[in-house]
């Protein structure tokens, strides 16, 4: 059931209760969690936080805690499956689901009592009407009972004939209704996509309660930017949401322009920026950033010698000396930095990169600390998917959660370093895949598989890193290939996950086009292929298009997919 008044139907209900927070492992969920934690701290709400990275962990956590809690809040998990069937809860447990995964499962939408969805109604949801999917079961029983009644033989016979005709008509109607229902459900659930970021939904809740602070606004911004960095939402939706957040930013930060009553330098200031799209460029050198951002490296084709020459031409066109560009951005000459954005934009237009600038926000506190929203996204993602194990399973999650607070700058800087390593690894892997033609067309899709001994392959055993790699690879492949048909194909990427158990992690991403609506059909396709071949797969991730399967079953799984999709 959709919650219309977030404050009354959600917050006021849980403010007096103990709550269990189940949070998925992505940056948007982390930001939503931070906002909700801050609200809980204001009102002294008792809560327990459990990070979950897949359906199995969700079920285990639920079973462990179901005796102690009656109210569960699920962040970025749980909307796209039938929760009641999977978790089998008691009658008096309530679930509040704040999830950006779509399509929302119809059972979750039409359940009136136990499941409440914290979702904005103006998202284009297209939920099928109730009558098209659910039908009273009582009509069935009337049919069977009528058969046994009857009094006189002739009447009986006539009534019998009438009954038979009625029954066949009803059965035919029922079959038609069921066929239509299957079609409607198939259309509805075929494509996976993402809706409004959960962090923005939580921020709206805080705003409605007048408890929104600049810090919470920043977390909402980071949540939205995470959706953009991971290519989960369309450009239109991103621009619309940026506009909505910009209103909040000007409301909170208009005092900074006034010299007389300006705020202390230590206060958080957020500013709207029409900034460059280069990843981490203010914490790196401009040269490294140009090489390691997927947008620039794909368009300049930096994996080839030609591409390197084009990069030199690009820099020369802007008049930036190589020596300056290769040192840390902070140490570049001020005269060069002043008009940098306009210069780069002009030159980029000449080299075919029309969207090098993007609307985003940056935060500024103290004298030294200035970060752009995408910097924080990259840093937090690398902290969360850090492969170096430093203790129990959840330390990475907690570290990433902590790095979002202003006081934990050391963790943030550690995250930035890890992010640089990750971006470099992604670029090198993309370059080697393209140069060695590892991306093969299988007919209805492109396929690429990372071999065991590839450098940094361990980094890509985590879902978000693998998704980033696949998107970069697809972008670069589209720019490098001359085959027009291949440019419109989606990509499936496989990487070894666990060598001892012989499993492989596989990710499917939609095709890369200018106006793509980011709808992904691989979720259902993977399920069907796994069923038909009996492969040992694990659909553990909240995103249905990411699965794990045994290495031996890989080839028959792929064959099944090819036949399914062609």
């Amino acid at each position, binding site marked *: 059931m959709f919650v219309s008044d977030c404050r009354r139907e959600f917050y006021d209900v849980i403010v007096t209760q103990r709550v269990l927070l189940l949070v998925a492992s992505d940056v948007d969920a982390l930001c939503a969690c931070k906002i909700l934690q801050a609200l809980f701290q204001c*009102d002294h709400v008792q809560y327990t936080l459990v990070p979950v990275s897949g359906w199995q962990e969700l079920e285990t956590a639920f079973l462990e805690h179901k005796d102690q809690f009656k109210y569960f809040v699920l962040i970025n998990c749980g909307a796209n499956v039938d929760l009641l069937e999977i978790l089998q809860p008691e009658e008096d447990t309530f679930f509040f689901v704040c999830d950006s995964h779509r399509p929302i499962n119809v059972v979750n939408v039409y359940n009136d009592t136990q499941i409440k969805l914290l979702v904005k109604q103006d998202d284009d949801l297209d939920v099928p009407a109730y009558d098209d999917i659910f039908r009273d079961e009582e009509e069935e029983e009337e049919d069977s009972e009528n058969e046994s009644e009857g009094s006189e033989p002739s009447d009986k016979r006539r009534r019998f004939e009438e009954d038979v005709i009625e029954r066949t008509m009803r059965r035919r109607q029922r079959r038609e209704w069921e066929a239509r229902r299957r079609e409607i459900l198939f259309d509805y659930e075929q494509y996976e996509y993402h809706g409004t970021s959960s962090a923005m939904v939580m921020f709206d809740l805080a705003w409605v309660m007048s*408890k929104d602070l600049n810090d919470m606004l920043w977390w909402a911004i980071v949540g939205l930017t995470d959706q953009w960095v991971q290519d989960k939402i369309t450009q239109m939706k991103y621009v619309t949401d940026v506009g909505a957040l910009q209103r909040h930013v000007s409301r909170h930060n208009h005092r900074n322009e006034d010299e007389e009553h300006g705020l*202390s330098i*230590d*206060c958080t200031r957020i500013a709207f920026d029409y900034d460059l799209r280069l990843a981490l460029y203010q914490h790196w050198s401009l040269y490294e950033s140009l090489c390691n951002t997927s947008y620039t490296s794909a368009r300049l084709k930096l994996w080839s010698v030609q591409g390197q020459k084009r990069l030199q031409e690009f820099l020369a066109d802007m008049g930036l000396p190589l020596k300056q560009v290769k040192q840390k951005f902070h140490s570049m000459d001020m005269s060069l930095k002043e008009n940098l954005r306009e210069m780069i934009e002009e030159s980029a237009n000449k080299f075919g990169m029309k969207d090098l600038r993007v609307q985003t926000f940056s935060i500024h506190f103290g004298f030294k600390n200035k970060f752009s929203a995408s910097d924080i996204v990259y840093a937090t993602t690398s902290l969360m998917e850090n492969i170096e194990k430093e203790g129990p399973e959840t330390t990475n999650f907690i570290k990433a959660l902590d790095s979002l607070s202003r006081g934990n700058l050391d963790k943030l800087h550690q995250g930035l370093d890890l992010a640089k390593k990750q971006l470099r690894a992604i670029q090198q892997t993309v370059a080697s895949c393209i140069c060695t033609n590892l991306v093969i067309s299988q007919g209805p899709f492109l396929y690429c598989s990372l071999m065991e001994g590839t450098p940094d392959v361990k980094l890509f055993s985590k879902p978000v890193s693998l998704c980033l790699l696949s998107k970069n690879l697809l972008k670069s492949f589209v720019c490098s290939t001359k085959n027009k048909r291949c440019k419109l194909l989606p990509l499936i990427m496989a990487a070894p996950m666990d060598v001892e158990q012989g499993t492989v992690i596989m990710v499917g991403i939609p095709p890369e086009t200018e106006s793509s609506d980011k709808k992904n059909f691989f979720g259902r396709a993977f399920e069907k292929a796994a069923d038909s071949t009996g492969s040992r797969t694990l659909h553990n991730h909240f995103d249905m298009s990411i699965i794990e399967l045994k290495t031996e079953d890989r080839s028959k799984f792929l064959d099944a997919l090819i036949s399914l999709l062609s």
Partner: protein
Amino acid sequence: MEPAEVEFLAEKELVTIVPNFSLDRIHLIGGDLGPFNPGLPVEVPVWLAINLKQRQKCRLIPPEWMDVGKLEEIRDQERKEDTFTPMPSPYYMELTKLLLNYASDNIPKADEIRTLVKDTWDTRMAKLRLSADSFVRQQEAHAKLDNLTLMEINTTGTFLTQALDHMYKLRTNLQPGESAHSQDF
């Protein structure tokens, strides 16, 4: 005393807040507080003010001495005089630190206030060190310093008393026959 203890005592000082909730009078061991009405200023101890501010339930109003003009005057006065001048509040240092840490968005020109208070503190500490130095050198029996705050006394207290103890021991060992001065501390 630890500096944390001095800060704890400082948190009993009263400060004005403007709450955004309503609550009847509450009766605590230390006295009564309230009633709280949204939009109406009320005086509460600093510990409660900071707690409410962190929970976003109030807005802090800086004390009247926490103003750039007044603090400039105090600082200049302190620099002119040789002895200590009276301070606007016996806990001026702790209050500045607490309020600027937690409520700097409610205090206009917070950075300048921080600088001015620090300047005044530095001047007073310099005077204190000078005075302690001359006290020890001239082996005085008593000293009287007016207008010192508890935090300042606390910074030098332990060191000064231990130093004077050592001096006494050294002196009594030098002149065993004479009756030693009994110095009351």
